[in-house]
């Protein structure tokens, strides 16, 4: 049956020669369409004798199947090629930079970060966070804290004053966060455990002093709290804050009007190559002042010093930030220089916690 073989050869040749899907479709219509060459052959089956049909049927059907299969295969091949061509055409330069996202650009100021660190540590020891106004009365900033009349801190060259009011009272910008101790002791009953972070002000501006700075104080009042407890709290704090296994601390007897006994605390460190490390070395670095709350201060808050007792401490937030993170200059803290903030600031989601670590 050479006519069928010839047709098959012709059609398969055409299928393989089809360069795209449209050409292939033309081939398909010419072979398998209503009037296609194969369709025409199939139509002839009806007019055949059963014997003829028995012989020709499988041949013509076989031809149809072969052509169909060939078209399908060719279609796949053409599809693949078309996709390859499309993909090649769609190629883009992925080395082009993307815009930095806002979460990459944003920064948290080191002071905020350190306050969050302090809060995480002291919250674990049961301390809450107390706050108070920056503009204070002379009574709460000085008198209630047992500063004697005529104390140099009460002078214009140390303290910022506002203009006297109608009553002749001169408000001050608090020189420490200690007035919040008084506010706390007069507004809540012991046991008291608070830390008091905040802005403080002194009439000072030079290489190492800024007229505004940040302090954190702690206050514990109950019926047992003593120096041994204070030492524990401060040692635990220093270990947790500086993230070291051990610290060596030195409590030097000292003097503050609002505590008795009082001490200044040094922390042992090494200073090799301008880098301060805690938990090693043999230098001492002053880090905070502390003491047992002065009986006069307790009395000023309506607490009987024979019944209640406790301790307080204070330190510079900016200073401990500098010690931990190595900023060399306090004044830069308040300059809002984005180069400094980008470098020393923290990423938005660097949220200090004890479970995840203060710093990552």
């Amino acid at each position, binding site marked *: 049956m050479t006519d069928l073989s010839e047709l098959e050869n012709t059609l398969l040749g055409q299928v393989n020669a089809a360069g795209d899907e449209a050409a292939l479709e033309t081939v398909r219509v010419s072979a398998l369409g209503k009037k296609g060459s194969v369709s025409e052959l199939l139509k002839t089956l009806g007019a055949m004798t059963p014997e003829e049909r028995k012989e020709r049927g499988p041949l013509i059907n076989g031809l149809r199947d072969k052509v169909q299969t060939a078209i399908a295969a060719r279609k796949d091949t053409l599809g693949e090629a078309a996709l390859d061509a499309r993909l090649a055409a769609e190629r883009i330069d992925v080395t082009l930079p993307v815009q930095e996202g806002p979460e990459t650009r944003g920064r948290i100021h080191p002071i905020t970060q350190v306050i969050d660190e302090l809060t995480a540590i002291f919250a674990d020891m049961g301390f809450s966070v107390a706050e108070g106004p920056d503009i204070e009365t002379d009574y709460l900033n000085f008198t209630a804290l047992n500063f004697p009349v005529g104390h140099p801190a009460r002078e214009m060259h140390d303290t910022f004053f506002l203009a006297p009011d109608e009553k002749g009272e001169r408000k001050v910008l608090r020189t420490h966060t200690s007035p919040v101790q008084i506010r706390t002791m007069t507004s809540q009953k012991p046991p008291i455990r608070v830390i008091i972070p905040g802005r403080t002000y002194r009439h000072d501006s030079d290489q190492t002093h800024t007229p505004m700075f940040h302090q954190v104080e702690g206050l514990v009042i109950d019926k047992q709290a003593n120096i041994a407890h204070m030492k524990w709290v401060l040692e635990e704090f220093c270990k947790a804050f500086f993230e070291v296994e051990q610290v060596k601390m030195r409590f030097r007897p000292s003097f503050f009007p609002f505590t008795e006994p009082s001490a200044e605390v040094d922390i042992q460190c090494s200073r090799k190559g301008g880098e301060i490390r805690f938990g090693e070395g043999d230098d001492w670095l002053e880090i905070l002042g502390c003491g047992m709350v002065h*009986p006069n201060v307790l009395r000023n808050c309506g607490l009987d010093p024979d019944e209640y007792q406790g301790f307080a401490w204070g330190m510079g937030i900016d200073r401990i930030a500098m010690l931990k993170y190595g900023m060399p200059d306090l004044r830069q803290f308040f300059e809002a220089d*984005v180069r400094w903030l980008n470098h020393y600031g923290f990423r938005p989601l660097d949220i200090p916690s004890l479970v995840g670590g203060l710093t990552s």
Partner: protein
Amino acid sequence: MKFSLSWLKDHLDTTASLDEIVETLTRIGLEVEGVEDKAKVLAPYSIAYVISAEQHPNADRLRVCMVDTGEGAPVQVVCGAPNARTGMKSVFSPPGTYIPGKNITLGVGTIRGVESRGMLCSAAELGISDDHDGIIDLPEDAPVGQPYAAYAGLDDPVIEINLTPNRPDCTSIHGIARDLAAAGLGTLTKDAVEPVAGQGACPVSVTLDIDDAKLCPAFALRLVRGVRNGPSPEWLQRRLTSIGLRPINALVDITNYITFDRGRPLHVFDAKKVKGNLTVRRAKEGEEVLALDTRTYKLDPSVVVIADETGVESIGGIMGGEHSGVDENTTEVLIEAALWDPLNIAQTGRKLGIITDARYRFERGVDPAFTGPGLDLATRMVIDLCGGEASEALVAGEVPAVTRSIDFPFAEVPRLSGLDVQPDESRTILEKLGFGVSGSGGRVSVTPPSWRPDIEGKADLVEEVIRIAGVDRILPQPLPRIEATVAKPILTPIQRRTRLAKRTLATRGLVEAVTWSFVAKGEAELFGGGDARLALANPIAADLSDMRPSLLPGLLKAAQRNADRGFGDVALFEVGQTFASDQPEGQSIKAAAVRRGTARAEGVGRHWDGGAVAVDVFDAKADALALLSALGVPVGGLQVVAGGPSWLHPGRSGTLQFGPKNVIGSFGEIHPKILKALDLKGPLVAFELTLDALPPAKAKPTKMKPKLTLSDFQPISRDFAFVVGRAVAAGDIVKAAQAAERALIAGIEVFDVYEGTGIDPDKKSVAIAVTLQPTEKTLTDTEIEAVSAKIVGEVLKKTGAVLRG
């Protein structure tokens, strides 16, 4: 307070080393600031004999010396000093020695072709004086080979302590020795002063003519006749120079010596220059005195002076007058030992700007009981060193008796310190410090010594005991939890919001700044402040004069500073306090942000993917709304009203409020007038929200979230384009559309705003997409048409809008 080790040993019999003494001082609260140990620095310098000094072959001004250093063969040294000569004794330093006066380390050198193996030194090179005039010329009997420092008495270490203001007793070396003795470092020596009887009454009388007796409670005076006032003996001069004091003459040196030795300042008058009797009185307004520092001070009645008939002779307790000062011709001397009011001395000293060793002591409080003994000690020294004959002492006023006693249960020590100090140890410590302890058992009566005005009560005694017993003996003891529970949340709602606000704004690409709480007065006024009650009486600088009413001036200026440094695309925020009054209620916490240039949340600066889009009001609005959302503020009733405070562009700003009386903040473009006034360059946009004014998050009885109901029916969206007057707010169109069918409308987006060709010049087209969410059944076309008609009708009614054809 400075003192030398040998001076300390006049008062303390001890075998302790310098290191032990220094360590102990710090441990007991007398913090050592520094130790200057010349013996250490000068250890390589020894006494040498110049065997020969010959002319250098190649240099006129140099000599080649052969030096016997006391060790081995003679050493050749090239020396340029004019006084170098054969047979002299001087000070030699070998190669490798550090030369303090030149800040170099000596090496072996060849000077003009001659080798030099060391140096003969001047006093200046050793850093012990300014004498450059030649090498040190020592007497013939100076022992060759011996260390020079020890020979010259320079091996006396000087200790400087940082004295806390409560310890007047340690302005004296005697007092420091007492503390060290109590701490177990030796025995206190040299205590009582033998009285000097004197012959005849003091011919000069003293009147205390003051309205307030405490200004000068007592004034003791004595005349010594027939003195010869020359240089003081070498031991005394050496004592004074060791701590940096300049010897003047014997009489003055004696007063300076006793000031440091006993913490007892004194004054000496040349009696022949004093006219008539002395009066202690307040100065007259405008009265002047030429003081011993050769400066003239203008006085006023707050200053207490000692005057004679001619006028002021001394500023009491601070500095004597030049006129009646003693000199080498003085033959009759009046010695004064007085008591002054610490507060008045401090104020006078500050007012006049005078810092003296006398003021330092009187403002801390001088031991009143040592007034008489101090005068006697001075008198004896004057007689010993200058000869003469003393009169009897005269005392005007009365030395106040110090008789207070403190009821002290020894149990106070463990109660406050946590250290179980036994009563015996406490008693011993107090007694060694000079406290009187009477009674026995656990509760005693303690009398503080006259030199400790700082001791008021039990807590002070506890401090005395533990600082001597040793604070390092107190072992840390865990502070027990108040309740044996998991740590509870501790932040207040505003504290939580403040923290969250900072983190939220940072995630929007804003950088946190901390700016001053004070701004310039003009800036305060521009931002709604400027109240005279919020102006500082003593600002540190003119541009930091008023408490800030807003965070914006600080942030805007900071943004400009960054721009001036070349960083113009800057986005800053601050969360902090602002001040509306000087009362605590007037202080509030605000959150504010500024964006400058192209610093948008989406991207900053030029970029291949588009960008370099200038910030606009909607960047600021987005920041504000993102913050409210993050803080969980219920925003159902939030109104955004066009226009804002005076510092924002009136047509490009909005006010955020829950009703007109409950404004929470604003956002917008900075007003051009503000840009001009603060010298800023835009584009600059900002928002500011008052965190305290935000409504609290809704209180919920449980942590359960409301039940989630999901509709089985697909939402459908319909678009409407309205043509409205240009002044109509898009917000009003949205509101009207929403009101048309509250139950069905699940959301409305404004997706296009168009003005221009095809639209009347006074109109604009606003296109909204309304999402309908059926809940019970799929909506039929008729139902959708009905809703659409309602929306169009409602928007027409409220805004006059017509559907765009």
